[in-house]
């Protein structure tokens, strides 16, 4: 009886990664390896100003003094940095005026991924920045947004066209000294999205970036910078996929968000990097530093993430609640199936007065997956009236997976109220049978139950993406069964 149940669960959880295809596009690649020379080449290829090259070199030299951290609950095979290509770009990237200028192979890729590069096909007004192999290929609605003073472009373009803005904010939330992978990224970052919402402007459409790794043996080092000036509002979504490969690929990105007084930023991620095959071979290493600074009074930053891919996910989207009355939120669903591992969570640093943070973390483990939640709630001495609510739930499918919780609470102010709840559950056989008896197949029942479990987080996604996310959740646990 137990065995049959396990068999059904195992059939359901062995999935086929449907984004595993590879696109044959002409690429410009530099030789493998990392050295000061490589950093200079990258900067030269992108025609960067001296100040940026200096920034990279400082970061690289600092990185050389650092060691990869060993504290996470993850088994990571040693990474040979000399065996990675640190720059790959689709060849002949002219200044793309229209959609027709894009390599048709590229267009086909995004069509296959279901990503609307053509403005006519847009999902009720979503601007898309398409980044393939670290290079921003196309940003839709740029002109429409520009009319409102909103800047949404590739990071590389921002460096050329808005250097003052970039200089002012880059590294202000994640300094190049922050951690091992942040230093690496600061040295070799390629591209990403840049977004600036001017004072008082409420961005009228969802902004999104789709990251697609295509080339083999390359690392992805994007850098995203999102600034909401006073009273501004923006909702931003990033999606990621990568082809199936036998080797692990490193993705070490940095996302910095700044919210000035009364501003609000919603940042959502649907991450579906190649997770490795069912024996744990290959897959993307997703080591990302994401941090938001609630700089001004009453500012608010919300992180929502659905992490279903990657062989290893290692990230802690965090909020620094500097402004008085600022609000930080973290909503997460992380799936680990087959041999995936995740050590993810958040840091909420309460600095200003009356700051508030909410953490809802839902882990789903299946197969041999190992899922760890690591969260820090830190209330500094002068942070009066801080409020935090944390909830971490784990759902276990089958009996070979693991769920772990590492909550850290550092509270240095007596007026703080910090709440923490945690639950662990299994999908019970009785629950599945109840569904069966109503005519619902076991796979559909698991889909219903998992989506019900994750609903609180999925509801935080912009509506256009909530449906995609639900399907993705079901797919990451069901695959080609039925």
């Amino acid at each position: 009886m137990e065995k049959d149940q396990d068999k059904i669960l195992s059939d359901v959880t062995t999935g086929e990664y449907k984004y595993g295809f590879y696109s044959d596009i002409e690429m410009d690649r530099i030789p493998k390896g990392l050295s000061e020379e490589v950093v200079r080449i990258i900067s030269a290829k992108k025609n960067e100003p001296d100040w940026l090259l200096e920034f990279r070199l400082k970061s690289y030299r600092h990185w050389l003094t650092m060691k990869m951290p060993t504290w996470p609950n993850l088994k990571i095979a040693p990474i040979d940095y000399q065996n990675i290509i640190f720059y790959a770009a689709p060849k002949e990237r002219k200044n793309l005026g229209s959609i027709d200028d894009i390599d048709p192979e590229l267009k086909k890729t995004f069509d296959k991924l279901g990503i609307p590069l053509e403005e006519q096909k847009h999902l009720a007004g979503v601007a898309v920045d398409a980044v393939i192999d670290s290079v921003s290929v196309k940003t839709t609605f740029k002109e429409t947004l520009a009319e409102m003073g909103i800047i949404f472009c590739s990071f590389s373009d921002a460096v050329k066209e808005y250097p003052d803005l970039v200089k002012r904010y880059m590294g202000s939330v994640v300094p190049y000294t922050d951690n091992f992978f942040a230093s690496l990224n600061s040295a070799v970052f390629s591209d990403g999205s840049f977004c600036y919402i001017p004072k008082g402007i409420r961005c009228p459409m969802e902004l999104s970036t789709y990251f697609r790794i295509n080339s083999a043996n390359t690392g992805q080092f994007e850098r995203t910078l999102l600034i909401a000036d006073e009273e501004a509002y923006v909702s931003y979504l990033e999606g990621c996929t990568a082809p199936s490969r036998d080797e692990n690929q490193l993705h070490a990105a940095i996302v910095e968000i700044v919210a000035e007084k009364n501003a609000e930023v919603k940042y959502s991620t649907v991450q579906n990097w190649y997770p490795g095959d069912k024996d744990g071979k290959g897959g993307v290493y997703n080591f990302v530093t994401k941090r938001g600074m609630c700089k001004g009074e009453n500012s608010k930053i919300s992180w929502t993430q659905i992490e279903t891919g990657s062989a290893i996910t290692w990230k802690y989207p965090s909020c620094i609640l500097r402004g008085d009355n600022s609000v930080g939120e973290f909503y997460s669903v992380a799936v680990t199936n087959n041999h995936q591992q995740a050590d993810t969570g958040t840091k909420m640093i309460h600095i200003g007065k009356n700051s508030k943070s909410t953490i809802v973390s839902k882990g789903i483990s299946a197969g041999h997956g190992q899922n760890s939640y690591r969260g820090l709630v830190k209330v500094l001495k002068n942070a009066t009236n801080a409020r935090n609510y944390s909830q971490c739930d784990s759902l276990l499918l089958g009996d070979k997976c693991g769920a772990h919780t590492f909550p850290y609470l550092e509270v240095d102010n007596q007026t703080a109220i910090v709440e923490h709840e945690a639950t662990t559950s299994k999908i019970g056989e009785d629950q599945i049978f109840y569904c069966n008896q109503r005519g619902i197949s076991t796979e559909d029942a698991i889909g219903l139950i998992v989506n019900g479990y994750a609903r609180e987080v999925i509801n935080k996604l912009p509506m256009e993406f909530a449906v995609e996310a639900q399907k993705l959740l079901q797919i990451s646990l069901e695959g080609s069964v039925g």
Partner: protein
Amino acid sequence: MLIINNLKASIGGKNILKGISLNVKPGEIHAIMGPNGSGKSTLAAVLAGREFVEVTEGTVTYLGKNLLDMTPEDRAKEGIFLGFQYPIEIPGVSMVNFMKTAVNEHRKHKGLDPLSASDFLKMMRDKKELVEIDSKLANRSVNEGFSGGEKKKNEIFQMAMLEPKLAILDETDSGLDIDALRIVANGVNKLKRPDNSFIVITHYQRLLDYIVPDVVHVLYDGRIVKTAGKELALELEEKGYDWIKKEIENNVTA
């Protein structure tokens, strides 16, 4: 509708059903009564298709088909409904979502298109009234936070939504107060048609005051030891199960 022939079943190697034969015709209500441990719930489990019960002998024919060969989902889609004795909670899955999925699976099986959202909600409203179920309950997660009585009413509500051909109610009356009992029975009676059937499993005669059976069987130690009309239930209520036990013992020694 349903023909059970010499059904024997065991759980974990222990023999529970020791040769059950039963014939349920369309339009009939059969009551199965018996003391604790007699095998009533095991019988319900076999009919619904629970894997932990092993059928060791016998046949079960439903609408001419071999029921034991069918998966639980298929049995359900062919019109078998089990009102659980202990309905389980499914947090996070709303009743609406759950029922819509179930109803549309049934429709797909019959070759019908799925119901539109508005048609479905209308159907829910109509059936809710039938069972006097609170609107608020329908918006919550399946059985989550429901009282015992509410869970049982919810079973009848689901039965109303799925319109089964054969409904097996496993001790639906346990844990119900008089008012809830009347509402549940009322719901069942309203759903009764000449082309559907009910197997009502119960300890007590009380429910059978409201849901009048055509046939009453007494299950004792894995066998049906007595079959009669509805008066049998009243006799049991009066004399208790000891009376049955003594009768059996006397028959054995005689």
